[in-house]
């Protein structure tokens, strides 16, 4: 992304162990960089922790981000770290408000890259309307990290109309996916060493909280469940739902939205798009009566243009996800085993 502010002046070109030592270098990094860039009334207090006001039920979640490379088509680790936690809160039916931010930086990371990540975090916070209110910075020796690892933890009040709960999922409910699948995983793969290929597929990393809150406002309890299919992809999340509800899920392959380029890349790489990671889509299970209207509303949103009903919750084949293939056959879609490994031919 473009830097929207000037990079802070700093004598060091690289992060050194001293930047995590707690002394003057750490202070300089925080004062000149982190606090200035992420400034807000709670962070500006510079206390050991943030004092926040929370009334009523709230959601609380945490996530760590380790990704190679840290800058990838369509985003970077900073943006991902904010959006990931924001989206997890949104999946609980909460309105994300406050985030913590912890860095584990590998000695030698370029200072320029660190600032880029930080500005990206700021921009993602603005887009999601959340504040970083506390955090931590540690530096590990060269070779003991992978440039930078980020942990974010988030809290947010539950939306008053939210009733997101696995126990509310019933046979006959419909399964909706909010946009095209598999873009994030394929974009990352396209820039990994040894697997590079030319494409303009971008990661779908983005905050989904505004779109989810709009849905909850209108449809409330009709929305039974929200899940974001990150690692393990659509298949793994749907398997978790089937397992935990003890119901079956039938999918229709033809209805699963996937961009042609992503489909092509999956064909070439021998990957199944159902198992490829996403960062900016969600699955929702909804009461059948409102499903079409929900899809129509999602389609009006820039992050939900390709939202579609892709399947149904059923009493048949309990705890299993079964998909009708494009030519009318059926197959079980299992949970991902280990890591999806590219095939030989």
């Amino acid at each position, binding site marked *: 992304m473009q830097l929207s502010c000037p990079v802070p002046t700093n004598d060091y070109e690289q992060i050194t162990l001293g930047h995590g030592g707690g002394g003057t270098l750490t202070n300089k990094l925080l004062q000149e960089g982190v606090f200035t860039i992420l400034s807000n009334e709670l962070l500006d207090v510079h206390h050991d922790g943030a004092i926040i006001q929370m009334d009523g039920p709230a959601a609380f979640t945490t996530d760590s981000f380790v990704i190679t490379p840290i800058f990838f088509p369509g985003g970077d680790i900073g943006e991902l770290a904010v959006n990931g936690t924001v989206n997890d809160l949104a999946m609980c039916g909460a309105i994300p408000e406050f985030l913590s931010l912890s860095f584990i930086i590998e000695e030698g990371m370029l200072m320029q890259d660190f600032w880029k990540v930080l500005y990206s975090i700021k921009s993602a916070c603005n887009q999601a309307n959340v504040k970083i209110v506390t955090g931590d910075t540690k530096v590990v020796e060269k070779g003991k990290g992978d440039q930078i690892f980020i942990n974010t933890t988030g809290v947010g009040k539950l939306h008053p109309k939210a009733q997101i709960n696995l126990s509310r999922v019933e046979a006959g409910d419909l399964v909706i996916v909010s946009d095209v699948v598999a873009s994030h995983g394929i974009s990352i793969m396209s820039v990994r*060493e*040894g*697997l590079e290929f030319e494409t303009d597929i971008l990661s779908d990393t983005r905050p989904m909280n505004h779109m989810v809150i709009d849905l909850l406002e209108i449809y409330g309890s009709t929305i039974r469940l929200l899940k974001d299919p990150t690692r393990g992809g659509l298949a793994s999340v749907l398997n978790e739902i089937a397992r935990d509800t003890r119901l*079956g899920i039938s999918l229709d392959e033809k209805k699963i939205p996937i961009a*042609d380029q992503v*489909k*092509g890349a999956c*064909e070439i*790489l021998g990957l*199944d798009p159902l198992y490829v990671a996403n960062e900016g889509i969600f699955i929702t299970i909804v009461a059948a009566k409102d499903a079409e209207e929900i899809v129509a509303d999602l389609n009006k949103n820039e992050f939900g243009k390709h939202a579609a009903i892709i399947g149904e919750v059923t009493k*048949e*084949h*309990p705890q*299993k996800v*079964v998909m*009708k*293939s*494009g*030519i*009318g*056959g*059926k*197959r*079980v879609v*299992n949970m991902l*085993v*280990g890591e999806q*490994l*590219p*095939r*030989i*031919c």
Partner: protein
Amino acid sequence: MKYVNEYRDEGLAQDYLEKIKSVVTQPWNIMEVCGGQTHSLVKNGLIDLLPEQVNMIHGPGCPVCVTPIHLIDKAINLAENEGVILCSYGDMLRVPGSKRNLLDAKANGADIRILYSPLEAVSIAQSNPEKEVVFFAVGFETTAPANAMSVIQAKEIGVDNYSVLTSHVLVPPAMEAIMNDDKSNIHGFLAAGHVCTIMGISEYEPLVKKYKIPIVVTGFEPVDLLQGIFMTIVQLERGMYELQNQYSRVVKKGGNPKAITMVEKVFDITNRVWRGIGSIPDSGFEVSAEYERFNANKKFDIQLDEAEEHKSCIAGQVLKGIKKPHECPEFGKKCNPEFPLGAPMVSSEGACAAYYHFNHVEESLTQ
């Protein structure tokens, strides 16, 4: 997507299914040779849709499945050498060796890289002159040209720290070994489209004549497979045996002459051990004397104990089509994709892994 969507068309697929039903009058055992075809049959749910008389038998055409266990051990041993970077195709990493697999070795600190192209391994060798870079060159005739090209390129640009650990296998000798096995009972073959794209189709003519068996060179999309099955059954029902080419949009009679030239330059034909099956004469490629310094088998002196397969694994019988995966007592129990006892449970192209999924459909839908 052109050349994909039309071959996944539901209407066309249904038409071919109807045609198959209208011509088939008795049971036929048809072996799809290639693991890619097995994968497609299962992924698209085709096995369920075919009439009962059509019994698809899954062949040995999964390179992951037939790479001998001692070569996996050798690859692991090389990877554990601190001076070596081992490069491999992805799905080789989970294949069990005699004690562990390449993923375990990677977790223990071995430098193992997953690549799509051996040419990338040559670049890695160029940028790591202090290391030996070994590419684990497995596969059928399909992957041989790219592996050959990597060796030619390494020689041309003088990259001496590059070598290939080859486990190349050839399809026609394996088909012959299956036909010679008294226990196998195959009536027709779907030959592997991609292998024929490289090698052409003429080497299958002698098989057709010798064994009086129809062979149809077939593609991988559902409509390809159904058309290939239909062409085979028409021949069987009429008492014919011919070599036919369903995949003519890709496969030319003479194959890809440039690729063949490269393969012949770098590789010699040799006897090869197939995992689970045993030694088959003239069924593999080994790096020729001219390129010997790029042959990891010669470059590194690795002495390993004799490796043994897991006692309860019946992979050999499965790969020859004598037994179906679910007839194995450990199928889906001790042996599953997460903890495979044998190689066919590893790759999605392996018959056991494919059946693992397929059987679950049957169970689910009858519950």
